[in-house]
């Protein structure tokens, strides 16, 4: 694959105005699927299901099977529509989107076409520095997910060159809401940041509604990012690309930045942008062309004859509206006050998409400051290194437990970081990792004194300095003692004991 030419980002923004658009698919966490009563793999109760064990006849398109709509999925969809500030259609309909693909049991997807359940809304998102931007929502519609294909042989896992593929229909029929924005103008240099913040905002909304587990690494939330550029001063929109398979918020940010740089280089060189879907590659940080849009995209939509219109009553809409949690912007203001964070501290959490994690960690018993420190610090660093989301690494409960061990003096900060790594590596809960790795702080003064005496004996000049009243010289011995104790000592206690042994306290 030839490497794309990229224009410097700032230069690209000088010449072109970026216009964004997003399609976010949210997997609902209902008990059962959108159109069948098979268990829903997007519900935590079914995470460990073996392939093809969450399948009802309609999920695999068995002859004679029929879909029936899940009422809870409809309620969730309406709630989401309301939370997005949308109008709820008095009458909406399902339609068939016809295309052949082995992961699609019926070879059509039941979706909504010209009559979505929710339309015309907006989401306010907050950027670094406290600026807000309003993202206009065109529609949110109900549909079903497809099954999962695994490509085998050749360069395994890649569709190109695979010898065969295996199909699992567990995910087929998982309830989805697809949220489609209108074109988003005026993001300018902040386009990549807007992209990330938008996805974070959607994630926060669906989490606060409790309608999805919203784990991007599990595919509960998937973003297709549309990017187009137009020369400064031009009215007409440029040709857009749709980048699919963007499965973390950080990747959304990077993919948008990449597409801006790539398209700018092409346009500035006198080239044209091909309207196409592109694939995001987490490993290389690049996008590559997928299928060009063609007349094979003739989906032959028509009203789904097996299903009837959804006509929510005023009462139902009012009931669901009354049950909405506070709007994320209100929620943020409340958290900021409750937690006592500075603007900068709070934005660190919010922009990292970590509000829910910090909130849950505090709920599990940690102080706001320590919860923030863990999530925006070490956990984010590790997640970036692994190319994943912080939330994918560790649960808020584990973080709170870890901090409790620190507060109890069982762990130093440094030891706690080692324990965190153990937890992430799947070695168990923090306490289990402490026990298994023997990482607890040595609180037995006898062992420490023995190590201190050895160290002082090895460095008589230092001992002399301390005894001379130059207590800061103790630092040189602390390092040696900590090393001897393999780090499992409390440095403050070591210092106290050194001074004691040197006769300075």
């Amino acid at each position, binding site marked *: 694959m030839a490497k794309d030419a990229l224009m410097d980002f700032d230069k690209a923004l000088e010449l072109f105005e970026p216009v964004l658009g997003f399609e976010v698919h949210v997997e609902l966490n209902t008990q059962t699927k959108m159109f069948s009563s098979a268990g829903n793999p997007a519900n935590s109760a079914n995470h460990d299901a073996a392939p093809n064990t969450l399948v*009802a006849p309609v999920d695999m398109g068995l002859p004679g099977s029929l879909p029936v709509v899940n009422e809870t999925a409809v309620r969730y969809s309406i709630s989401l529509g309301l939370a997005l500030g949308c109008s709820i259609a008095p009458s909406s309909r399902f339609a068939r989107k016809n295309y052949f693909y082995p992961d699609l049991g019926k070879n059509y997807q039941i979706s909504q076409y010209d009559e979505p359940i929710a339309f015309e809304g907006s989401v306010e998102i907050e950027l670094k520095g406290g600026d807000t931007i309003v993202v206009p929502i065109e529609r949110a519609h109900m549909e079903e997910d497809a099954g999962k294909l695994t490509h085998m042989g050749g360069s395994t896992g890649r569709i190109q060159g695979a010898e065969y593929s295996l199909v699992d229909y567990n995910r087929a029929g998982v309830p989805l809401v697809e949220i489609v924005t209108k074109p988003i103008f005026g993001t300018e240099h902040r386009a990549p940041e807007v992209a990330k913040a938008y996805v974070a905002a959607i994630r926060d909304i669906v989490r606060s509604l409790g309608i999805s587990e919203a784990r991007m690494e599990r595919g509960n939330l998937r973003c297709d990012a549309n990017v187009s550029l137009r020369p400064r001063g031009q009215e007409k929109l440029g040709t857009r690309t749709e980048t699919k398979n963007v499965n973390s918020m950080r990747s959304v940010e990077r993919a948008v930045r990449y597409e801006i740089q790539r398209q700018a280089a092409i346009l500035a060189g006198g080239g044209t942008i091909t309207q196409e879907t592109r694939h995001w590659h987490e490993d290389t940080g690049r996008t590559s062309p997928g299928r060009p849009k063609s007349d*094979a995209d003739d989906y032959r939509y028509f009203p789904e004859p097996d299903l009837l219109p959804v006509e929510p009553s005023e009462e139902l809409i009012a009931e669901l509206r009354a049950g909405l949690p506070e709007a994320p912007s209100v929620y943020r203001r409340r958290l900021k006050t409750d937690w006592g964070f500075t603007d900068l501290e709070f934005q660190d959490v919010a922009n990292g998409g970590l509000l829910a994690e910090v909130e849950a960690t505090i709920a599990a018993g940690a102080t706001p400051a320590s919860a923030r420190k863990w999530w925006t610090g070490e956990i984010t660093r590790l997640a970036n290194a692994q190319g994943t989301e912080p939330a994918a690494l560790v649960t808020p409960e584990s973080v709170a437990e870890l901090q409790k061990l620190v507060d109890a003096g069982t762990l130093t900060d440094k030891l706690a970081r080692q324990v965190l790594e153990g937890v992430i590596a799947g070695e168990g809960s923090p306490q289990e990792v402490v026990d298994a790795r023997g990482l607890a702080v040595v609180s037995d003064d006898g062992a420490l004194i023995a190590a201190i005496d050895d160290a002082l004996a090895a460095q008589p000049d230092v001992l002399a300095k301390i005894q001379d009243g130059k207590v800061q010289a103790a630092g040189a011995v602390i390092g040696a003692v900590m090393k001897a104790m393999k780090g499992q000592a409390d440095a403050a206690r070591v210092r106290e004991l050194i001074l004691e042994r040197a006769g300075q306290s």
Partner: protein
Amino acid sequence: MSEITPDLVRHLGVLARIQLSDEEVERLTGQLDAIVDNIAKVSEVATPEVAATSHPIPLSNVFRSDVPGDMLSLDEVLQNAPDAADGRFRVTAILGEEQ
């Protein structure tokens, strides 16, 4: 006359995933042309003020409660599979070799 051409029929064959032979394309072109000529008259009376009927007996809000049931066993899922491996359906490559 309608606009059914052999190229259109071939394209429809691609959309419908039916490998039509040249002989079939030719035969279908003629037959579809005649059929379309006969059925195109629906547009004569389908004026804008007439609503479309997609369900003969109007109903709405037919839902199922969110309770698990109706699941097939893995054996039942795979019982008619032309080819299977590792509890999954096996199909030949999705795409050809990389060009």
